[in-house]
């Protein structure tokens, strides 16, 4: 290396304090708090939106009280009115096979543009699961892309360089061509004329849009003639980025131009539920007196009050329009503003696009507006969800239509809440009856090895371990039974298995095994090192959709899918894996009952404690 590290240190020492301050503050937002610790104060409610339909979704009321009691830490532990989380699951239509989308075939796009004869050769695989229809609008200096539901998925402005201190005159950009139905993204080109001081310049820009960003993948400009993209390259070294190489070949004097585009893209979409803080949602409509009982005296002015320990700023709309500190507040709070995203969604994986809200989580867009005063602008989206009748969610995003941890959120009781009459009193009927329905959960404890079933000479080391205890919360009505007869499922290791029943119906099997804890790097734990015996087979593998639910320095519990391949092509069952590195043991739960849904499995996993 031909540089001086000391020199670089000096350079970095001169970094602007504002930049280092902001970065440090962002780093404090590390999302390493286990999901189950965030809002798990009560029973959870799962709402499953029907894929692409607005039909009434089935509701599932899961367990969680005992799970929460076990997990312990909560953001607001000790508050009597803490409510259970609400879980909005992604659409069932996105199976694990569809979530990893890789473009691996080609289409050719050809369009005679008069001056241009354009051929675009794009390798891709169309996925019918992704809404791929977009409308591209170019006006002034903006490109706005809306999907077929009118949701703006992205917008961008041209970034014009100043020339000689003057802003070039830009004619309205003209869309040259577009490729629609391009899976989750879209490819299009824009040409525009510029002129300054009598000198004209013309440019062609090729863009690729996905659900979160516009990538400018090639641009060239010159005076007097259009020069299309010569070469653009964005290398790939990740799981969600683009790789393209654009070659330009001129056909000489015929003024015909062709593009040869090799475009490769991988899109990873994770099926993760959105966990909504029900405690927060339940505060809509509460009276000032009720808030005082919960948090103590409020403070603030105008139309919003803050409470120590509260979530944001709580809004009333008195007739006078202005709320004075000593004003007696009538009615209920009709909106909560300035909610931190981490307090609305627990452990969400960002970014979540507005498209995701609509198509994956069943939210309904109500009103959308963009401001583009600066390069990115902000974007406000109001949404409803069928599970929360009368409640709207307003997201103000820094990136257009992209919800991340910087997004500002407001929730309100109705769409006109800013002008609405205060709610007379807290009315629980604002929530559908079935959301309030609660199921009890029961804590169970099992000691492993539970029996000598499966013990053999080759498994002597497994059965000679110091017994350990598994604590777990199961839905009410579930019972357990130590297996006396051979299971022979070929799926679990069959080490002193315990069967779980829902009534008379067998639903799952719990099993255990041992592993070498030294193979797990505590700084970078790899679940495959723990469960390697379960993941190596091509006939039965637990290595599908592995998603940790909670973890500590020494343990992790996760949900997963179990693939089995027998006479039928492939079957998938739900499963739970959990290990304790200090003890060198792990447990497996195989759900043979396919009617046990994701959220039940998820909540059971969140309750697992091995000690």
């Amino acid at each position, binding site marked *: 290396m031909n540089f001086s590290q000391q020199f670089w240190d*000096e350079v970095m020492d001169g970094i602007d304090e504002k930049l280092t301050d902001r970065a440090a503050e962002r*780093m404090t937002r590390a999302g390493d708090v286990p999901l189950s610790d965030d809002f798990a104060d009560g029973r959870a409610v799962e709402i499953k939106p029907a894929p692409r339909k607005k039909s009434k979704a089935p509701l599932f009321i899961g367990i969680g009280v005992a799970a929460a009691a076990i997990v312990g830490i909560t953001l607001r532990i000790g508050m009597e009115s803490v409510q259970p989380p609400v879980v909005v699951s992604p659409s069932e239509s996105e199976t694990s096979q569809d979530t990893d989308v890789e473009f691996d075939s080609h289409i050719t796009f050809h369009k005679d543009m008069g001056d241009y004869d354009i051929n675009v050769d794009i390798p891709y695989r169309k996925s019918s699961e992704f809404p791929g229809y977009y409308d591209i609008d170019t006006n002034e200096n903006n490109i706005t892309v809306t999907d077929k539901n009118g949701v703006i998925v992205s917008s961008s402005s041209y970034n014009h360089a100043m020339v000689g201190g003057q802003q070039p005159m830009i004619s309205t950009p003209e869309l040259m061509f577009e490729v629609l139905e391009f899976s989750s993204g879209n490819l299009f080109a824009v040409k525009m004329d510029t002129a300054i001081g009598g000198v004209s310049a013309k440019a062609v820009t090729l863009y690729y849009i996905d659900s979160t960003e516009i990538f400018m993948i090639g641009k060239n400009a010159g005076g007097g003639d259009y020069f299309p993209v010569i070469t653009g390259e964005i290398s790939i070294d990740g799981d969600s980025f683009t790789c393209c190489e654009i070659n330009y070949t001129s056909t000489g004097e015929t003024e015909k131009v062709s593009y040869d585009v090799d475009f490769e893209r991988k899109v990873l979409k994770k099926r993760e539920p959105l966990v909504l803080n029900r405690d927060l949602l339940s505060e809509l409509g509460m009276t000032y007196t009720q808030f005082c009982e919960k948090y103590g005296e409020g403070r603030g002015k105008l139309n919003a009050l803050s409470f120590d320990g509260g979530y944001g700023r709580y809004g009333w709309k008195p007739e006078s329009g202005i709320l004075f500190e000593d004003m007696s507040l009538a009615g209920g709070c009709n909106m909560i503003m300035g909610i931190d995203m981490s307090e609305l969604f627990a452990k969400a994986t960002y970014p979540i696009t507005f498209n995701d809200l609509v198509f994956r989580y069943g939210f309904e867009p109500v009103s959308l507006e963009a401001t583009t005063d600066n390069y990115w602008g902000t974007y406000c989206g109001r949404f409803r969800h069928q599970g929360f009748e009368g409640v709207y969610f307003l997201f103000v995003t820094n990136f257009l239509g992209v919800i991340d*941890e910087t997004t500002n959120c407001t929730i309100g009781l109705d769409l006109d809440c800013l002008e609405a009459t205060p709610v007379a009193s807290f009315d629980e009927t604002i929530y559908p009856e079935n959301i309030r329905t609660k199921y009890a959960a029961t804590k169970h404890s099992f000691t492993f090895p539970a029996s000598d079933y499966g013990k053999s000479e080759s498994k002597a080391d497994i059965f000679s371990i110091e017994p350990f205890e598994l604590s777990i919360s199961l839905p009410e009505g579930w019972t357990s039974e130590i297996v006396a007869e051979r299971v022979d499922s070929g799926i679990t290791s069959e080490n002193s298995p315990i069967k779980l029943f829902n009534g008379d119906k067998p639903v799952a099997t719990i099993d255990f095994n041992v592993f070498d804890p030294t193979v797990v790097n505590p700084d970078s734990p790899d679940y495959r090192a723990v469960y390697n015996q379960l993941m190596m087979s091509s006939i039965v593998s637990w290595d599908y959709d592995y998603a940790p639910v909670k973890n500590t320095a020494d343990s992790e519990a996760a949900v997963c899918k179990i693939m089995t391949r027998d006479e039928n092509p492939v079957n998938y069952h739900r499963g739970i894996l959990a290990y304790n590195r200090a003890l060198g043991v792990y447990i497996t739960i195989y759900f043979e009952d396919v009617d046990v849904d994701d959220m039940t499995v998820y909540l059971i996993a969140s309750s697992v404690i091995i000690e």
Partner: protein
Amino acid sequence: MQDGNIIALFFERSESALAELQKKYGALCKRIAYNILSNSEDADEAVNTAYLRVWNSIPPKKPESLCGYLCAVVRNTALTAYDSMKRRRTEQLYEELAEIIPDSRTTEREFESRQISEYINTFLHKQSALNADIFVSRYFYNMRLDDIGAAVGLSESAVKMRLMRTRSALRKYLEERGVDI
């Protein structure tokens, strides 16, 4: 506890200020120090030294961002400690930065480090806040890619990709200003 309240405790010379500081930012400080020193005990020592420096500097100083100020002090303390030892962990960072760090044999004669810092500051202010924060977290605070990813909600590879794009743009930016790479 809010930062303002913690600073107030410092001004009151209340030792609970340090406890609150540790409670709120201890993990982050430890991570920053550890990423430089690659040793848990050394990192603890650096963090404690940093706390002492913060204690001695507030008051009279009243930082706009307590978090940023503290992290910078931790980082500088750790680097100082690191300089007294063998350089270890940061060599990887320098390898990443080789593509944009000026050739010191020629550059140091022509450009003061301060000038290049200014260029980089200007450049970073033009980037998106997220990309700038990722860059600063990586190369100023020496944060690990997965830690950055966890903080900003991106995968490690996505962070890596953003860094690569930022470095590439920075290299071009510096070259345009005559900085010999």
